[in-house]
């Protein structure tokens, strides 16, 4: 059997690794557009800061592909799938034979249709090239606007301030990430920006315009918009919805952190079902049984698309199990991490489904966590510099261990013993 995996992000590389680990001894080819398969989370953190180089964030060391008998085709894209002929077409026209194809093409950073968004000073962040270009703009004193205060926007803002930039972070939402983290923790995290001297603006961007001095962004606020941080916190009263908070400001660089767009073009032209992601079943199979899809670009019909590292890795393991006809690893509660302003944040489960929130420790402590309960069971946890709490919570969620709110909220009570019941 011949398998071609299109895309060498964590989903594609995990698929290949799990196939070989599971005993697949057929022909295995991995095609990736990049210089070599590398990891994305450091692109907004250490790689952007310049403390890690590309080869340090390789998903596998270079010799691994030979050792595993994987044909790696770098700096090349898959141009088309021809499932009916059992072939995959590479850019340049070369045809590879494939009995099964795994689409692991991830996606691209979203670029909303804001006037002027195509300018040279406007950046997105999805690839190492994006990070290199952005890094060159993050010089000390550079006036930087980050649009979007979600995960990637917050990380970029934090890295940019570390690099000495003068940062403005704009988001129309009052408390970004409130659904994923719970209102209080999200608000606390968002306030870290202002404490580090970042100006946070509750506003969206209406347009960009090149000026002789930089790029001018005009903001559209909600009913209120505040410029906090910097030297003196300032609040602007705005006449009403849709009115600019501060008419406009000029920046040296703009970074858009407003989400990703799944790469579905290959699937669409091959006639597969696509709806905000390549649609797959529980075994990652698309509407054509010869094609599987994994990672950020795929979505099960029942659920939303998940855009986190570990979910992509699990998708790869599941796709491999489907191909091998073995049992897929048991599903676990979703998990992701993010780092900003020197704090390591982890989240497991679905905080938005909680009907009760318990704080373990205090927001002033060096580390603390928040547990989300529903009907007396732990359904989510989020922690700052306390990975163990999230690891324990994940097991409580997966094993449906009844929660004891008193012990959960007591930082001196061991979560490990709580887990044992």
């Amino acid at each position, binding site marked *: 059997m011949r398998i071609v995996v299109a895309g060498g992000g*964590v989903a594609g*590389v*995990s698929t290949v*690794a799990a196939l070989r680990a599971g005993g697949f001894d057929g022909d295995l080819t991995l095609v990736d557009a990049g210089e070599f398969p590398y*990891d994305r*989370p450091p692109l907004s953190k*250490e790689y952007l800061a310049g403390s890690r180089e590309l080869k340090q964030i*390789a*998903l*596998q*060391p270079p010799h*691994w592909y030979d050792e595993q008998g994987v044909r790696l085709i770098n700096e090349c894209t898959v141009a088309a799938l021809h499932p009916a002929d059992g072939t995959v077409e590479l850019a340049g026209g070369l045809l590879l034979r494939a009995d099964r194809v795994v689409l692991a093409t991830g996606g691209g950073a979203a670029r909303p249709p804001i006037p002027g968004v195509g300018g040279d000073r406007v950046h997105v962040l999805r690839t190492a090239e994006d990070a290199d270009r952005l890094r060159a703009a993050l010089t000390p004193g550079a006036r930087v606007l980050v649009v979007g205060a979600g995960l990637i926007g917050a990380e970029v803002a934090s890295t940019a301030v570390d690099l000495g930039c003068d940062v403005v972070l704009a988001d129309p939402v009052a408390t970004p990430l409130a659904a994923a983290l719970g209102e209080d923790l999200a608000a606390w995290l968002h306030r870290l920006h202002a404490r580090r001297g970042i100006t946070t603006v509750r506003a969206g961007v209406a347009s960009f315009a090149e000026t002789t001095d930089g790029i001018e962004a005009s903001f559209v606020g909600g009913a209120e918009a505040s410029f906090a941080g910097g030297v003196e916190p300032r609040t602007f009263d705005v006449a009403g919805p849709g009115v600019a908070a501060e008419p406009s400001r000029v920046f040296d660089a703009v970074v858009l952190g407003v989400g990703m767009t799944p790469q579905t073009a290959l699937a669409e032209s091959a006639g597969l079902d696509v709806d905000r992601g390549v649609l797959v079943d529980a075994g990652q199979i698309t509407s054509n049984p010869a094609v599987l899809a994994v990672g950020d670009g795929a979505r099960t019909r029942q659920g939303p698309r998940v855009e986190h*590292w*570990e979910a992509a*890795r699990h998708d790869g393991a599941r796709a491999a199990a489907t191909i091998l006809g073995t049992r897929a690893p048991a599903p676990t509660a979703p*998990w992701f*991490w993010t780092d900003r302003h020197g704090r*390591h944040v982890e989240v497991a489960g679905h905080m938005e489904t909680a009907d009760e929130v318990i704080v373990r420790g205090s927001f002033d402590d060096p580390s603390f966590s928040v547990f989300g309960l529903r009907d007396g069971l732990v359904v989510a946890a989020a922690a700052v510099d306390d*990975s*163990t709490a999230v*690891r324990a919570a994940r097991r409580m969620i997966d094993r449906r261990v009844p929660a004891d709110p008193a012990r959960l909220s007591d930082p001196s009570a*061991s979560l*490990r013993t709580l887990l044992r019941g």
Partner: protein
Amino acid sequence: MTQGIRVAALDDIPEGEGVAIDKAITGTADDIALLRDTDGSVWALDDTCTHEDASLADGWVEDGYVECPLHSSKFCLKNGEVQGLPATRSTCPHRVEVRDGEVYLFPNQAP
């Protein structure tokens, strides 16, 4: 050093957890993580995760593996083998013996 170095009392290491032993004591290149599995057995691995620089002694120890506290890579307690991304390199195991409730470490010796 056939006797090994006494580095901890067994009771100092709760099941499922680890403690880091300073390289000044062990004479090794890296600190060593003493890790106590859920079955009570004790193991030793180089402390620094091969992915970035988290301390495996702060990790989650369970069923023969330690899970890195930062990005969840798992390492086999017996032989240090890495079980999954993002770490790609195995870590170095060291021999440990428990005698009379005391933990003795044999740095750089195979378990």
